[in-house]
């Protein structure tokens, strides 16, 4: 635990090797890189998940969230539209809103000196603006409209609210591309989600080690024994990965065949998964037919830090928030849908055991990044090998590949000019 926080402020950084198959470890350790990411990724030309539309049902509802280090207020304005702005008073920089969520009929007021902001983040009032009894006050040249916290561009897709600090980000639909958008649509399109629970998992590692893990379809059936034994995700089963043109977004999916014979190639690997482990209460895995396409697992990521998960009927969104080079928050929002029957809702609650901080198939992802962070502590000048499935970052019919991990680094390096 403790040694993970020992990150050198400045590290000699050997050049990034050519190609996409090597990742130098200094990228997970260096303070200067962390700061550059804040500017070029989190405030750069990318879209970041902020909240679900259903979390802000009425005008005046708000939530606070994070885009990298930036605290952000997301609101539904009087016009019913979603707005987002930096949670930073234009006066002296204090947080404007201290609550995680709530409802406000009037303006937000900074606690420090009472400067007020409307739901769109416009500065609307300054306490004692004209002074008291003709004394003090702001100069007459001060224009309120020239001051305010930074506003984010907001775009809502299938109930997911995304925001961007940058005017250079392409429209969200273009940023995602048709293939990724359609994969979001197949889970969330034309449905009314219901939040079932929210949990935060504090990861003892750099945020990129978590997103690498999300994109890594190679590890799933090796690290996660639970997954494999119950044939939720076998490398030999029908499935594929999709990597978009930028490399930054991906989908990994599989369709299971419970009747399938145990795969011979897998048994030959003598992996831990041949334990013959069985459940005393198999109702955990009794799902219901939710998607006509027969896909029972779809993990989708949007560069840089958003994940949409469908594992059988366990649906969740995950938001990755870096706190320090070796400290990351992973925010889980478990969701169901308004038209769930009580029986379907119970199945979702049971299948939530698969995911989250105590998830049968995700628990290991909480610690594996820390194992890497500690493993590479003395090796900033060394590099990881990301060569499974070749050297390209392209869609693949095989899930025994690290193509989407390479895709992440392709998009990342483009952002950071590395």
């Amino acid at each position, binding site marked *: *635990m*403790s040694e993970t926080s020992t990150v050198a402020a400045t590290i000699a950084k050997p050049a990034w090797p050519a190609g996409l198959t090597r990742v130098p470890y200094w990228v997970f350790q260096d303070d200067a890189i962390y700061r550059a990411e804040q500017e070029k990724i989190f405030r750069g030309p990318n879209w970041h998940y902020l909240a679900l539309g259903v979390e802000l049902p009425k005008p005046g509802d708000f939530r606070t969230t994070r885009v990298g280090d930036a605290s952000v207020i997301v609101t539904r304005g009087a016009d019913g539209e979603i707005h987002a702005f930096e949670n930073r008073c234009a006066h002296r920089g204090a947080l404007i809103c201290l609550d*995680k969520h709530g409802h406000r009929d009037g303006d937000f007021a900074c606690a420090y000196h009472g400067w007020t902001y409307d739901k769109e983040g416009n500065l609307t009032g300054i306490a004692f603006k004209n002074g008291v009894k003709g004394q003090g006050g702001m100069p007459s040249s001060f224009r309120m409209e020239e001051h305010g916290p930074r506003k984010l561009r907001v775009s809502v897709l299938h109930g997911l609210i995304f925001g961007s600090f940058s005017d250079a980000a392409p429209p969200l639909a273009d940023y995602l591309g048709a293939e990724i958008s359609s994969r979001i649509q197949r889970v969330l399109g034309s449905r009314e989600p219901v*939040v*079932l*629970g*929210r*949990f*935060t*998992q*504090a*990861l*003892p590692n750099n945020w990129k080690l978590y997103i690498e893990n999300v994109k890594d379809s190679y590890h799933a059936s090796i*690290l996660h*024994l*639970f997954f494999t*034994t119950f044939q939720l995700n076998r490398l030999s089963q029908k499935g594929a990965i999709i990597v978009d043109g930028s490399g930054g977004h991906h989908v990994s999916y599989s369709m299971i065949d419970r009747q399938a014979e145990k795969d011979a190639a897998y048994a030959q690997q003598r992996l831990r998964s041949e*334990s013959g*482990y069985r*459940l*005393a*209460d198999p*109702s*955990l895995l009794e799902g219901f037919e939710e998607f006509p396409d027969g896909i029972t697992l779809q993990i989708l990521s949007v560069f840089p830090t958003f994940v949409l998960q469908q594992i059988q009927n366990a649906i969740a969104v995950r938001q990755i928030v870096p706190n320090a080079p070796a400290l990351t*928050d992973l925010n889980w929002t*478990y969701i169901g849908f308004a038209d769930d029957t009580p029986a379907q*809702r*119970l199945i*979702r*609650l*049971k299948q*939530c*055991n698969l995911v*989250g*901080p*105590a998830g*049968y198939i995700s*628990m*290991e992802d*909480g*610690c594996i990044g*820390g194992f890497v962070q500690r493993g590479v502590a003395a090796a900033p000048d060394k590099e990881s090998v990301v060569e499974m499935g070749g050297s390209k970052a392209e869609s693949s019919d095989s899930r025994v590949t690290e193509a989407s991990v390479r895709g992440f680094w392709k998009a990342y390096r483009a952002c950071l000019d590395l």
Partner: protein
Amino acid sequence: MSRDPFRLIAKAQADYARCIDDDRLEGWPDFFAESCVYKITTAENLREGLEAGIIFANSRDMLRDRVSALREANIYERQSYRHILGQPYILSDDGALVRSETSFLVIRIVQDGDAVIYATGRYLDVYAIGNDVAKLNERIVVCDSARIDTLLAIPL
């Protein structure tokens, strides 16, 4: 013998804590009735009426599965807990079922020796009292914080 739910609950809970802290997890499901609810959630989720748990089980067999998964399937660093429990507070007693609330503090001890406060919160329980024993029909573990460090393997 006179019925004394406070004593029986206090005894059951002390035993429950020892069972987990002594790494006798195989005995942990036996503190529950066969048909039971065990859920770990957060104060925030409880306040907002959000029903999902970090762990959710509605049978004792699901608890047994949790233990066998920890023993056979899941990968995590060796760790142990020290549960410090408050006194149970009896919320209601209808003669058969007793609702009680007990605060807890759990220290997690990991391999390198770090012993940190891992979770604080309260148990919201429904005990079936009978035959000089208290069995859990329901235990909702309400963590005060919404943040779980690294992972949650061993039950609370």
